[in-house]
């Protein structure tokens, strides 16, 4: 005698839907933690897509170049006048800077501190951005074959861009500072103020970058620069952004500052991966 379930089409469909739902949630649970290692399937898809992304980036780069040139020509005159003024200011600043460098050198010698080594940088091109509106990440044209590893810091001339979240042989995904998951995973992004107040970077969905402090009454002023502290995965002294204002969480009464990122994330073409952060980078320069 056939079981009633076999004959009941709706019940069978309901069971199949339930099993599928359980399976989906199981996969989501298994992959919801910080995942540096990508699966073979993900690697294969990324490798297949790589030439398409390169080609699109090449074509888009040309179109973008033409558009940008036309736009920039219209602003050239105003920029020129402004730049002349800034050059004069920069010359004065340079003179002051040289004086400060000498002074700094003298103080370092007195304190018997070692000269800080430059980071080893790998210059990479941004070939694609994430197609998901809920994540803020970019794809660069260097991967594990070039020595890139998960959690390496990524910078550009403006400051800290983000960190490597996953790596395939030819490409790497860079999780931007403005991505909500950036500060997750322990001390993913330790931060400090010039006066030495330490904290962590915590980004909320919607691109709000915040710095939470380890002490209750930090000395903060709007416009102050915020650097990586070297505690955690990031090398020290990379500029994250500037203090934009104070805030506090209604739920936990926790104080934090809103951070205006130093990097213009709409204009990311070339970035540098900080290869092999040394032990000295990890906290040696933290105040």
């Amino acid at each position: 005698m056939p079981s009633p379930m076999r004959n009941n089409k709706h019940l069978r469909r309901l069971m199949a839907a339930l099993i599928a739902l359980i399976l989906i949630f199981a996969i989501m649970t298994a992959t919801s933690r910080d995942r540096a290692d990508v699966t073979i399937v993900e690697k294969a898809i990324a490798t297949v897509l790589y030439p398409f992304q390169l080609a699109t980036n090449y074509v888009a780069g040309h179109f973008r170049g033409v558009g940008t040139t036309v736009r920039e020509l219209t602003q050239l005159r105003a920029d020129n006048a402004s730049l002349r003024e800034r050059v004069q200011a920069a010359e004065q600043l340079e003179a002051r800077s040289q004086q400060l460098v000498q002074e700094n050198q003298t103080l370092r010698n007195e304190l018997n501190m070692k000269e800080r080594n430059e980071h080893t940088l790998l210059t990479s091109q941004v070939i694609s951005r994430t197609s998901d509106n809920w994540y803020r990440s970019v794809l660069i044209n260097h991967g594990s074959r070039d020595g890139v590893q998960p959690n390496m810091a990524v910078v550009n001339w403006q400051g800290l861009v983000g960190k490597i979240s996953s790596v395939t042989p030819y490409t790497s995904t860079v999780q931007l500072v403005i991505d909500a998951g950036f500060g997750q995973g322990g001390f993913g992004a330790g931060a400090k103020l010039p006066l030495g107040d330490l904290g962590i970077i915590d980004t909320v969905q919607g691109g709000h970058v915040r710095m939470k402090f380890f002490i209750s009454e930090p000395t903060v002023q709007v416009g102050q620069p915020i650097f990586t502290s070297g505690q955690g995965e990031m090398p020290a002294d990379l500029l994250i952004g500037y203090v934009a204002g104070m805030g506090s969480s209604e739920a936990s009464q926790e104080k934090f500052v809103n951070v205006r990122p130093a990097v213009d994330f709409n204009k990311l073409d070339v970035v540098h991966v900080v290869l092999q952060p040394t032990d000295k980078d990890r906290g040696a320069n933290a105040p």
Partner: protein
Amino acid sequence: MRYWTLSGILLLAFLLQSVVSSYLAIGGITPDFLLVVVVTYGLLFGWEVGLVGGVIGGLLIDLITPGFIGRHVLSYGVVGLVSGMMEGRVFKDNLLLAPVGGLVGSVASQMIIVFCFWLYGREVDPIGSLRQTLLPAALYDMALTILVYNRIYKYYLYLKPDPRGTIVIRRH
């Protein structure tokens, strides 16, 4: 049903989504080609095609975007299923079908993704996300659905031929 053609369109949408969509971003918001195709499949071809298209498309996009795998499978799958359940209840040539389908589908899909974020501890600012991501993306997807739905509907009889055959009228 011409499943190979439907699969080809889905694959093309995936390619556009993964390679081109970031260049079509307006104010940082990218169009969701796959969602649009899934909604269209559901509304035109029923819940089976909508659901399978949603699950396959969602899995593909989950494998190339950061974050946990499964959120797009769930959101596209549900949207494909629900839009497919509407198939027999709506007129396919109704002008409002595509924009309403695209708007509701996009909002529903993103709400499911936000629910998944909440479930797995990713902090979400509800007001900020609504203003900066959810609503602009829904409007973008709505506009795209109008284009894609009408394009695919044009070839409806080719994609889903009448099983009784076709009558060819010749003029002499």
